[in-house]
């Protein structure tokens, strides 16, 4: 287990190899082999580590690789401390679960990408896998990091990879714009994160998660006043909203769909975007000490979930729908953490990773089949062309809609239940969201796979019929109509579909007779181990269990309700988009205003554009002008003043000082008219004068001596 640091390093090596050598020298097969191989090793190692973790007594394993920043004296609230950071990695239940998710799904998506990205040039292919591996490196660093700064390394690193991968097709203006937007919005979040880190160090004198947790546990829960822990949590949550696309920083995620679809699946659905949730869970002890921030987190999560879901209702781009769905699901997770159900959040994180990755990959398969068409209005009827994709996507859809016994049901229901216990308003929001989720997901399914084919016509090439599986499709040749994707793509789809089905079984709630295994498994990550200091948390946990005990019945009722809501949504979608498509048109016309509002995503982008971006840019330009005119103007003005004064003094110089000089000169020149006769130009005359001088001196000598 001491080799857990190898888990991130392996993909890192893969990235380095592909980056330094692959782009120039490797064929596609070679780069794919390097990337998938390194990921496969990392995944194997992750499983090995996880198994060991399960088998060991201790739930926490730290590995310190090296000193990163050696100890430097720095004052904290408790006097002079030492600012020191190690390259330290930690395997505990939470990170164990995460590395499984990341490396597992990462591996699948790597495999998927080998086929999906086949249209790229060799160099582009290697570059893609380099980035993808690099992402996994940073993501695994993020989840394994034992202190905030190492986590921050991964945090920023995945941001970088996200930037690079979104902008993978950098020739596309929209892609590079989206990448930049993602990075910058994340940076805003990071601003909060780093301030949180600083404040944590200042408060606790350390950056190690467990030590911080221990320190926080020793402090009172800040129910009454907005204290330092609340501030820390607020800062951290700002960071989380950036990374996990919550209000107000969610705007980058839909745009990020400009990237290749596997990227969207891996980064913008399964792993990176959940880093915010992961981070909040990591600092669960801190957050439990800041109930006010918890409330904020819950509210933001809930509102985000609803808002994103509502936007998803009207989008026509298949990936955008999924993107908003992701935002919405992330809102769910924050809702869970906000109400104190960290385990539920983490659980949903995991299940979501499976089904959302599945959905994205499925959509990728569709897009691939449709020759890079993303607009659902130009799809339809694909069910017959690509059955595997259809089936797997259906599984994913059902999972996200919360249909039992698929994974989404258990995790989502857990969240709903916890929310219900905590806050009814939020619960209503969540339930509404669930309904919308079911609706837009089935709308997606309906528009894509059902109905008639609405896409462009294709040429019937010899030997290639529509729907025929042909793996030699490389995107360059003529398009021969929608078709099922090659095995390298359908394989991961099927694997993820299995995951989407079974992943929920680790968290069957007690009400259904399960043990909610995952909650207990994750428990140690959310509490401090030292029991004597863990009083409040333990109490809180105890309370929660009590509530569990009390309301098994209610829980079952709620489950039924949520299933009903989901089914309702599905039914509505079925009616509007499969049975009577014209009805959708009618509704759209009837609620044109609302539709436009949703279609334009509440104009948030425009709002940001006109305020933040424009403000910054015009501020920059204004300051530049200020710089040139005022600051530099002052400098040049000084210069000008100097010149002016020098001009004045030059006048003085010319007429007064120089006048006097000229007077002398004038008198000299006047007198020289007479005196110049002495200057005969005859050398001997000068010699004569010399001789005269000699004469005079000799005479003087003669006389004086």
């Amino acid at each position: 287990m001491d080799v857990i640091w190898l888990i991130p390093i392996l993909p890192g090596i893969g990235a380095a190899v592909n980056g330094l050598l692959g782009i120039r020298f490797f064929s596609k097969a070679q780069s794919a082999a390097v990337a998938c191989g390194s990921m496969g090793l990392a995944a194997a190692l992750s499983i090995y580590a996880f198994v060991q973790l399960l088998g060991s007594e201790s739930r926490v394993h730290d590995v310190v690789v090296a000193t990163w920043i050696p100890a430097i004296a720095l004052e904290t609230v408790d006097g002079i401390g030492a600012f020191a950071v190690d390259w330290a990695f930690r395997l505990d239940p939470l990170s164990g679960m995460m590395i499984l998710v990341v490396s597992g799904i990462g591996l699948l998506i790597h495999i998927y990408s080998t086929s999906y990205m086949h249209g790229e040039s060799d160099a582009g292919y290697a570059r893609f896998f380099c980035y993808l591996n690099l992402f996994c490196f940073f993501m695994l660093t993020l989840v394994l990091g034992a202190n905030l700064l190492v986590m921050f390394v991964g945090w920023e690193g995945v941001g970088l990879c996200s930037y690079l991968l979104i902008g993978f097709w950098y020739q596309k203006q929209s892609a590079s714009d989206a990448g930049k937007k993602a990075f910058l919005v994340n940076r805003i979040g990071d601003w909060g994160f780093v301030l949180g880190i600083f404040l944590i160090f200042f408060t606790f004198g350390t950056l190690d998660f467990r030590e911080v947790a221990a320190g926080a546990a020793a402090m009172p829960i800040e129910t009454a006043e907005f204290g330092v822990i609340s501030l820390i949590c607020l800062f951290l949550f700002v960071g989380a909203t950036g990374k996990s696309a919550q209000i107000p920083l969610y705007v980058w995620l839909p745009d990020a769909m400009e990237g290749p679809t596997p990227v969207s699946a891996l980064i913008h659905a399964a792993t990176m975007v959940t880093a915010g949730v992961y981070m909040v869970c990591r600092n669960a002890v801190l957050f439990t000490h800041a109930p006010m921030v918890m409330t904020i987190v819950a509210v933001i999560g809930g509102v985000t979930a609803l808002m994103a879901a509502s936007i998803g209702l009207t989008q026509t781009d298949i990936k955008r729908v999924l993107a908003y769905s992701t935002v919405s699901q992330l809102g769910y997770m924050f809702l869970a953490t906000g109400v104190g159900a960290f385990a539920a959040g983490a659980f949903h994180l995991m299940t979501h990773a499976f089904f959302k990755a599945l959905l994205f990959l499925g959509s990728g398969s569709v897009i691939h089949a449709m020759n890079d068409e993303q607009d659902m209005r130009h799809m339809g009827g694909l069910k017959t062309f690509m059955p595997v994709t259809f089936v797997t996507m259906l599984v994913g859809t059902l999972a996200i809609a919360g249909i039992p016994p698929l994974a989404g049901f258990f995790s989502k229901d857990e969240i709903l239940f916890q929310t219900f216990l905590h806050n009814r308003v939020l619960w209503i929001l969540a339930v509404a969201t669930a309904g919308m989720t079911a609706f837009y997901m089935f709308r997606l399914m309906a528009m894509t796979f059902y109905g008639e084919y609405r896409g462009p016509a294709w040429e019937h090439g010899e030997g290639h019929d529509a729907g025929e599986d042909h793996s030699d499709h490389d995107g360059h040749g003529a398009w021969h109509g929608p078709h099922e994707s090659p095995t390298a793509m359908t394989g991961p789809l099927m694997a993820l579909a299995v995951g989407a089905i079974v992943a929920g079984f680790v968290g069957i709630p007690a009400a259904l007779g399960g043990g909610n295994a995952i909650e207990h498994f994750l428990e140690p990550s959310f509490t401090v181990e030292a029991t004597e200091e863990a009083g409040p948390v333990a109490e809180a946990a105890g309370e929660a269990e009590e509530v569990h005990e009390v309301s098994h019945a209610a829980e079952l009722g709620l489950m039924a309700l949520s299933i009903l809501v989901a089914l309702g949504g599905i039914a509505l979608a079925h009616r509007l988009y499969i049975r009577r498509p014209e009805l959708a048109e009618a509704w759209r016309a009837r609620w044109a205003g609302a539709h436009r509002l949703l279609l334009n995503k509440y104009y948030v982008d425009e709002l940001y554009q006109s305020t933040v971006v424009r403000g910054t840019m015009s501020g920059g330009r204004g300051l530049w002008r200020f710089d040139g005119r005022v600051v530099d103007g002052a400098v040049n003005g000084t210069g000008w003043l100097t010149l002016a004064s020098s001009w004045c003094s030059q006048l003085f110089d010319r007429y007064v000082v120089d006048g006097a000089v000229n007077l002398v000169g004038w008198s000299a020149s006047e007198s020289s008219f007479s005196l110049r006769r002495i200057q005969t130009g005859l050398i001997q005359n000068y010699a004569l004068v010399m001789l005269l001088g000699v004469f005079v001196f000799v005479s003087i000598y003669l006389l004086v001596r």
Partner: protein
Amino acid sequence: MLEITTTHYLVLSAALFMIGVIGVMVRRNIIIIFMSIELMLNAVNVNLVAFSQQWQHVVGQVFAVFVIAVAAAEAAVGLGIILAFYRNKETVNIDEMNVMRW
């Protein structure tokens, strides 16, 4: 008078020197003037050697050697200038060498 002392040499030297001076003052041929200067340098050397003899020390002769070296340098450069001047003006008359006056 029959005993030759340093004074004799000095007087001789002074006379030689003054002849050189007169040559410089009187002649208009610049080559002659240069030669007059050589005469003056020689007078100086006589002086130096005479004193060297008087004080029984060769440093005077060393100085004379330096004077000769300087004379050689002067002659070389001076005659070069004369040649260059002659090439342009076709004269060596010092009274016509007055273009530097202005």
